[in-house]
């Protein structure tokens, strides 16, 4: 367990850096540009917002302002990739891949060219802008496309590593980013590998856990939480309270939704038997659905109980991030109560 995770679990949030994933992405894109001349960046009138300024300043010849034209941007990038470039295209997730899905499908994925789609300001956490600007369907839209890789970093540092890693592959890729600052829970030394999910926390075997109840001993209650994006940090905030109730838990940071890490899903399901999925996205078609598909395909559904947390068949609305996480029941309070109800403690 790294220092940051220890601090979050113990509620020492003042020791935790709060940085937006888009900021980490900006640093990662700059590194990718330094490492590989093939990397170019295209932006649809949101260069500063999505933190492409650093790349633009360092490599003005490899930066292209597309105006507010996401459909054109996707296909222009496809043409550039056909000429050997590795284009990153950036806009808000609602518009790219929201508006330009068909262009991404036909000109990027069908051609199987290495365009990197960067969808910023995803989820309800974009806040006051309201429902029109809160992409809650983008993971589903992207993971359904053949050839597409889907990455949802849990923090700014992971976003930086993810930007660099996706620039090193020849696959079409989707990188999902968020507007608001969020806790940095990973550290430089943490390995980030596309398709390899990280178990970031497990209750250590020495720390409990059979609680005597009257005469008998209650069997150990276990829960495996699988999350992506800021929901990983929110899950960590529940650790202490759940362990205090005698619950043994593991948390998997599923930063790559596709290709999904089958081995880690198998591990989590066989060890914990109860799986809670948490995402800032529609539950229909998102990360939780991908996990369920994985469990079903590997004939594991009979052995586990699964509960999915996320936005349920609703659009977003204006509010602060905290108000909206509460309204859509995806904050630490709801993670906590969902675990308890799953384990039939309440």
């Amino acid at each position, binding site marked *: 367990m790294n220092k940051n995770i220890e601090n979050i679990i113990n509620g020492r949030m003042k020791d935790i850096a709060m940085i937006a994933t888009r900021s980490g992405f900006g640093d990662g894109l700059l590194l990718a540009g330094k490492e590989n001349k093939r990397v170019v960046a295209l932006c649809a009138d949101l260069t500063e917002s999505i933190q492409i300024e650093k790349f633009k300043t360092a490599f003005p010849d490899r930066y292209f302002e597309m105006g507010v034209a996401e459909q054109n941007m996707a296909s222009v990038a496809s*043409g550039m990739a056909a000429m050997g470039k590795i284009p990153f295209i950036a806009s808000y997730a609602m518009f790219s891949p929201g508006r330009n899905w068909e262009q991404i499908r*036909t000109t990027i994925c069908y051609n199987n060219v290495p365009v990197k789609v960067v969808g910023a300001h995803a989820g309800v956490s974009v806040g006051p802008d309201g429902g029109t600007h809160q992409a809650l369907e983008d993971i589903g839209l992207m993971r359904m496309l053949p050839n597409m890789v889907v990455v949802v970093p849990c923090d700014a540092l992971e976003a930086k590593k993810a930007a660099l890693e996706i620039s090193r592959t020849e696959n079409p890729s989707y990188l999902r980013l968020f507007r608001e600052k969020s806790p940095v829970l990973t550290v430089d030394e943490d390995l980030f590998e596309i398709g390899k999910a990280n178990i970031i926390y497990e209750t250590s075997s020495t720390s409990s856990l059979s609680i005597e109840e009257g005469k008998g001993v209650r069997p150990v209650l276990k829960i495996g939480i699988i999350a992506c994006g800021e929901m990983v940090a929110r899950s960590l905030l529940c650790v202490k309270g759940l362990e205090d109730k005698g619950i043994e838990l593991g948390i998997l940071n599923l930063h790559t939704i596709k290709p999904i890490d089958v081995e880690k899903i198998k591990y989590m399901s066989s060890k914990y038997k109860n799986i809670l999925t948490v995402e800032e996205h529609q539950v229909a078609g998102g990360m939780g659905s991908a996990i369920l598909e994985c469990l079903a395909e590997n004939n594991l559904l009979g052995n586990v109980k699964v509960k999915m947390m996320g936005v349920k068949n609703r659009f977003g609305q204006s509010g602060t991030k905290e108000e909206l996480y509460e309204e859509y029941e995806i904050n630490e309070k709801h993670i906590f109560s969902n675990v308890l109800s799953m384990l039939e403690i309440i």
Partner: protein
Amino acid sequence: MIEESEIKYLENKANDIRISIIEMLQIAGSGHTAGPLGMADVFTTLYGKALKHDPKKPFWEERDRLVLSNGHICPVLYSTMAHFGYFEVKELKTLRKFKSRLQGHPHREFLPMLETSSGPLGSGLSQAVGMCLADRIQTPPSPPLIKGGNSSQKFFYCLMSDGELNEGQNWEAIMLAGKKQLGNLICIVDRNNIQIDGFTENIMPLEPLDKKFEAFNFHVEDINGNNISEIYSAIQKCKAVFNKPSVIIARTIPGRGIKEFERDFHWHGKAPNNEEAEMAIKELRNLGGKIESDHN
């Protein structure tokens, strides 16, 4: 300029390409007829004269790029490529068949020598613009952009339909091409005035099309798209324009070469049956009664 003998050669080639189009559509039993026949002269002029390319080296880095945006007219692309040596003419008979490299709409994963896949209308021009922009990073523009000048200079052609201009994405790409002054981008619009539901000016009026392109900083050539000499001369003029992109509005006759098909929008999206194909091929083989073909 282009020699009279060369025009004759290309006209005959275009006729062979049309015959193959009819044969492949007849065997496929579905597909588009009018557009491919109408554009056979443009494709022949490109592959037979204007393009810098080498059928024996389809991935040659210095080749000009030709993006077909309206993928549904791919029978003319496939037929032209076969007749200029990219693959054997007999492969054309696999059009639209299971496992064929010649998919119903072009797919580069099946036939990697294509520059792109297409079918959904409106995205080809964006891709050609992207290719052009990427190329500029290595090869900054230097006038004059004409053959014999800078030998590494590539030209980027986008072939598109008129009905396709209904798609908004085209105008996004046109704005960008104009902004970037892409002198080595040449669009060729198949101005045949038909689309699936009828005549373009009834469905969604495009005129004045030349003025629209000019307003977006394009150089415009307006020509008879079934006249090889005019097509070649327009391409040469466009190549000489170095500070803005060009468009050739190629006025073609849909179904060109077969009187019964010409100008009839019902032939947009259907293939000839056996009887119709036999009639069409006969008409093409004697060039409407003008000459006897040696094709037999």
